């Protein structure tokens, strides 16, 4: 049951601001009702933590600087089951540490929001420079079969907007939601308009209200695999959650059959709701010879290239993924069946392009405009690929 309410005005810093993406993430989280943040500072994401910490006394939130990123996500699991909307923020190396407990959060169906302000990797890589190199890690990084949701904002305004969206998705599907932004968006300042609380819709936690002795922390096999309600630790409910395969009561069940029910649920609650989750922006796809598919900061550079291509008479469409995971499979498949080529620029050596290739399945050319990270593309590189795709 998804219940939407108006945002608590206490967390909403209404008005126009000139703000960077990192700060906008924190403001979006506060507007969404997040009141618990546990994290460990890392460039280029630290400003989000600083902002959240600074605003905590005003809104009545709690900020904890943890000993590391492993503990940060553990604290989020506790915070969420303690009744709060919870968030952390990190970058590459910290993300690697968080993965173990992101798996635990998926298994225990604990709602949380994790922002990854991407920088160049691998390892400590390029701490101060931009990248989109963790896109596959976001999807596959923790072990086992599971699903998460990942969003990619292209501006400080969208950092604010998508932070709210991320919390709403996390509560609706009881799943970790990743905001895959990057150093460029994180550190650029632009106008951010924060609407009044009365115009912000937030999804309330689905609280259990039945008899205390009948609560089950999990619900498998509901319509569209929607997850069941939660309770708050300390409210007198006896329940158990675990990383082991479990039944609806949360008790470990080491059997093939239990695994089938449990894991199917984790996957299908996202996959069977894909159409409701996936968000994108499409422009002039009809009749396009070439379509550029991109996300995050790269999508802004891509628009420039697309405009240049159109000036040269090439019918070029533009498709911006706002949701990267679950992947917009249906949309890309449809594009691939109609165009000569899809061009995929990303600030990595070719990651989401693999998904595009999977959907295109040989129906059109797929051209990767990749990079080793550290800088946004030169629009001319993308333009050259558009021309190559048309020929």
């Amino acid at each position, binding site marked *: 049951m998804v219940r939407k309410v108006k945002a608590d005005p206490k967390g909403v810093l209404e008005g126009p601001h*000139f703000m960077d993406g990192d700060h906008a993430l924190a403001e979006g989280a506060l507007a969404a009702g997040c009141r618990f943040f546990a994290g460990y500072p890392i460039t*280029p994401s630290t400003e989000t933590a600083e902002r959240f910490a600074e605003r905590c006394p005003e809104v009545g939130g709690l900020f904890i600087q943890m000993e590391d990123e492993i503990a940060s996500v553990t604290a989020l699991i506790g915070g969420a089951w303690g009744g709060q909307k919870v968030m952390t923020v990190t970058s590459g190396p910290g993300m690697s540490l968080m993965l173990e407990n992101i798996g635990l959060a998926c298994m225990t169906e604990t709602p949380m929001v994790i922002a990854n302000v991407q920088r160049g990797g691998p390892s400590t890589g390029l701490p101060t420079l931009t990248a989109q190199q963790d896109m596959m890690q976001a999807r596959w990084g923790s072990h086992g079969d599971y699903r998460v949701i990942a969003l990619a904002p292209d501006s400080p305004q969208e950092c604010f907007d998508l932070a709210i969206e991320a919390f709403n998705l996390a509560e609706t599907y009881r799943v970790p939601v990743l905001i895959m932004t990057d*150093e460029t968006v994180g*550190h*650029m*300042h632009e*106008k951010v308009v924060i609407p009044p609380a009365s115009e912000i819709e937030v999804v309330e936690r689905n609280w259990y209200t039945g008899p205390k002795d009948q609560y089950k922390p999990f619900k498998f096999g509901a319509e569209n695999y929607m997850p069941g309600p939660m309770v708050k630790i300390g409210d007198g409910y006896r329940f158990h959650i675990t990383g082991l395969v479990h039944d609806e009561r949360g008790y470990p069940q080491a059997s093939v059959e239990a695994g089938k029910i449990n894991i199917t649920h984790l996957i299908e609650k996202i996959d069977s709701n894909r159409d409701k989750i996936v968000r994108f922006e499409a422009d002039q796809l009809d009749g396009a010879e070439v379509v550029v598919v991109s996300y995050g900061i790269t999508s802004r550079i891509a628009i*420039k290239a697309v405009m240049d291509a159109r000036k040269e008479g090439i019918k070029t469409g533009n498709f911006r993924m706002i949701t990267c995971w679950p992947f917009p499979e249906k949309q890309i498949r449809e594009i691939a069946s109609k165009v000569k080529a899809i061009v995929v620029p990303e600030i990595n050596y070719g990651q989401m392009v693999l998904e595009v290739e999977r959907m295109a399945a040989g129906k059109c050319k797929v051209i990767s405009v990749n990079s080793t990270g550290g800088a946004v593309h030169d*629009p001319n590189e993308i333009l050259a690929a558009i021309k190559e795709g048309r020929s």
Partner: protein
Amino acid sequence: MMEVRFSGFGGQGIVRCALITGKAISLYDDKYATMTQSFGPEARGGACSSQLVVSENRVLYPYVTVPGVLVALSQEAYNKYEPELGNGGILIVEQDLVKQKPDTGRVQIFPIPATRIAEELGNRLFANLVVIGFFAAVTKCVTPDAVKKALPELVPGRFLKANMQAFDKGYAYGNDLMATKAGADKMAEVCEAVE
């Protein structure tokens, strides 16, 4: 579209220059502005720079490629960034701190003793506001009203008035210089016609 680079050394309020100007433009002048800054170990102590891309439409590419305006408040910044300023671009220099190359006419040079003016107002820390005032008068990129609306959250409250004054001084200095320049240009035209 206009690309602007503010540069100097750490401590001169270079980042603040772009923050104040960017906020003024995007919140109160009804245009789009995207601000980025040098971010890395090189920003500490040495040459420091902040960038603004200003446009009537949404800014797509967020970084400065060929600046049309360069503000250089230190020798190192001038040496580093002057060569990338576009032909015919506007160069604003702190004349007491920057020893310039001979003027070849490649760019339009607007000198100002910003630090000295700020010191006359009581504190050299106001130099960046003097520069923003001068910048506003010379480039017309931002209106004085917008800057004054943008200031309150970006400078400490107790220095708000002094910063406003610094802005006014720089703006007046810029207007005077523009008037003199216009007069000189007109005179040159007249002389040419007579010849």
